[in-house]
């Protein structure tokens, strides 16, 4: 079957449907605004959001933390949605095919097999470890013993989570959507329950007066690093959103649920994580949910959270596999879907043996991947909205190097790749998340938005310089 309803008899065509080769038609775009809201809510309220909230609490207190999370996510999501959702929704094509104009066929492959693959493997690893930690805590509760935060049960739970995610993935996007429709509302309820337990077991006063856990000396710098970290979180949705948005019925059903649901759901979950970190010293609900909620309720919540991580993992890996398949230049064309998805999980499976590493490097991972993703977003927005004025030629996109519009020497649009590197380098010059060095101006403009703007400007300038007079559409 195609995405929905339309019988596809030829197995070759059915296979290409699964891999997202074909632009989706009106009757196949079946997600309403509500459906897509639940999909995004399920993505947003995974336990990574609690971890983001806890990391924000390292730098700022409760009120400033809410402000930093709101500002950061609003900025990051704003240009992430413009860069990924708008074009994919309109043309029904997955986002990496649409990037061929900006980077070239080979250029897109380079990006997918470096930035996108590493980023999504990182997030998948983190989700698997989080699911493993929830499993370990539930097992410890019923065994009446301490299994440790990073013990072997975490690894076993993580590996089982990966196996289940692989099974869900092998069933295709419709199954993922069905799981999300169940998980998302439940997660919203669970998150509220956790917040109630937090407040009941601590106090509002303790929450509002709590000091940040490990701030720098400069309060302004603390706030801006917190904002920047949350911009990175907003942008981190880029690799998956276009491929999901193509299944929505209309632009309204795509843009606002992508922006609104991710913003609101992320904020709610992050606030719970931050509140826990500020009052209890740990943002991860797998640590405090059983002591506060009791064995039965606590374990039920943790099982639900573990399952939610699995659906999140399925969603992000689905989009990543589409990108890998489309960007492989035919190399992976004959590899079955189940084998491809299983191959993706090899690195996350290995990383479950190093759960502590994943948690400790979380902020660096988000910020460094954000440096590259913001630059990609900047180039994508400049290409689609400014250079091509929202006009793309689907035939030319699929022809790639055999066509005219999106064919470049060696398959690389150097304007796009140089702009990407320039944007990411500018980000890392403004704010180095590894050494924590910042330029003075960072405290005013942060890093992501300026990096995206630099990437966009460099892209447009180089396009004018390198490809002067080049057509942006074919006259038929």
């Amino acid at each position: 079957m195609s995405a929905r309803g339309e019988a596809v008899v030829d197995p070759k065509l059915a296979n290409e449907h699964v891999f997202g080769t074909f632009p989706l038609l009106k009757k196949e775009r079946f997600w309403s605004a509500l459906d897509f809201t639940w999909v995004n809510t399920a993505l947003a309220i995974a336990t990574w959001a609690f971890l983001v909230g806890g990391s924000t609490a390292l730098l700022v207190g409760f009120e400033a933390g809410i402000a930093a999370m709101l500002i950061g996510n609003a900025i990051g999501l704003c240009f992430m949605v413009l860069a990924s959702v708008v074009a994919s929704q309109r043309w029904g094509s997955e986002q990496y095919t649409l990037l061929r104009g900006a980077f070239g066929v080979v250029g897109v492959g380079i990006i997918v097999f470096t930035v996108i693959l590493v980023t999504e493997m990182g997030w998948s690893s983190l989700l698997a470890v989080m699911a493993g930690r929830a499993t370990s805590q539930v097992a410890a509760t019923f065994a009446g013993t301490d299994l440790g935060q990073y013990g072997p049960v975490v690894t076993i739970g993580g590996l089982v989570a990966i196996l289940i995610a692989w099974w869900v993935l092998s069933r295709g996007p419709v199954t993922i959507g069905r799981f999300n429709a169940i998980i998302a509302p439940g997660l919203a309820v669970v998150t509220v329950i956790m917040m109630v337990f937090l407040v009941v077991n601590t106090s509002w006063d303790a929450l509002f007066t709590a000091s940040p856990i490990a701030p720098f000396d400069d309060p302004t710098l603390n706030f801006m690093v917190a904002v920047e970290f949350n911009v990175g979180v907003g942008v981190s949705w880029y690799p998956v959103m276009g491929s999901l948005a193509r299944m929505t019925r209309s632009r309204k059903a795509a843009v606002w649920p992508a922006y609104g649901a991710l913003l609101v759901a992320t904020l709610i979950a992050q606030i719970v994580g931050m509140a826990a970190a500020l009052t209890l010293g740990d943002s991860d609900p797998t640590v405090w949910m059983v002591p506060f909620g009791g064995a039965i309720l606590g374990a039920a919540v943790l099982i639900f959270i573990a399952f939610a991580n699995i659906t999140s993992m399925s969603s992000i890996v689905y989009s990543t596999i589409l990108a890998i398949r489309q960007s492989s230049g035919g190399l992976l064309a004959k590899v079955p879907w189940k084998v491809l998805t299983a191959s993706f999980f090899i690195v996350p499976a290995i990383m479950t043996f190093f759960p502590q590493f994943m948690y400790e490097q979380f902020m660096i991972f988000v910020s460094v991947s954000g440096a590259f993703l913001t630059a990609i977003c900047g180039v994508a927005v400049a290409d689609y909205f400014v250079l091509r004025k929202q006009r793309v030629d689907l035939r030319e996109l699929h022809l790639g190097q055999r066509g005219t519009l999106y064919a470049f020497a060696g398959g690389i649009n150097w304007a796009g790749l140089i702009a990407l590197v320039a944007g990411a380098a500018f980000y890392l010059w403004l704010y180095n998340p590894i050494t924590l060095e910042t330029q003075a101006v960072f405290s005013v403009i942060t890093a992501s938005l300026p990096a995206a703007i630099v990437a966009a400007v460099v892209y447009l300038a180089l396009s004018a310089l390198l490809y002067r007079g080049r057509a942006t559409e074919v006259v038929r």
Partner: protein
Amino acid sequence: MTSPQQSATAASHPTAFERALVAGGTDPAVAAELERRIQIVEHDERDEPSRLPMTGREIAVYVGVSVVAVVIGLLVVVL
């Protein structure tokens, strides 16, 4: 280089687009299905609201909402 031209011919008479894809290794059935879908997108669904470009007003409202969210965040800090 000349771009392949679109035509409304059936799959039994592959278009230049299909021929170019097949020459590049794409299965003929896949190339024909791509052509069929692109024709639907470009013709039958051309005036569908979901296929229209984002208007300047839509972009302005969208960015405006983001700006309002940022201002609210700043007010939380300042006040």
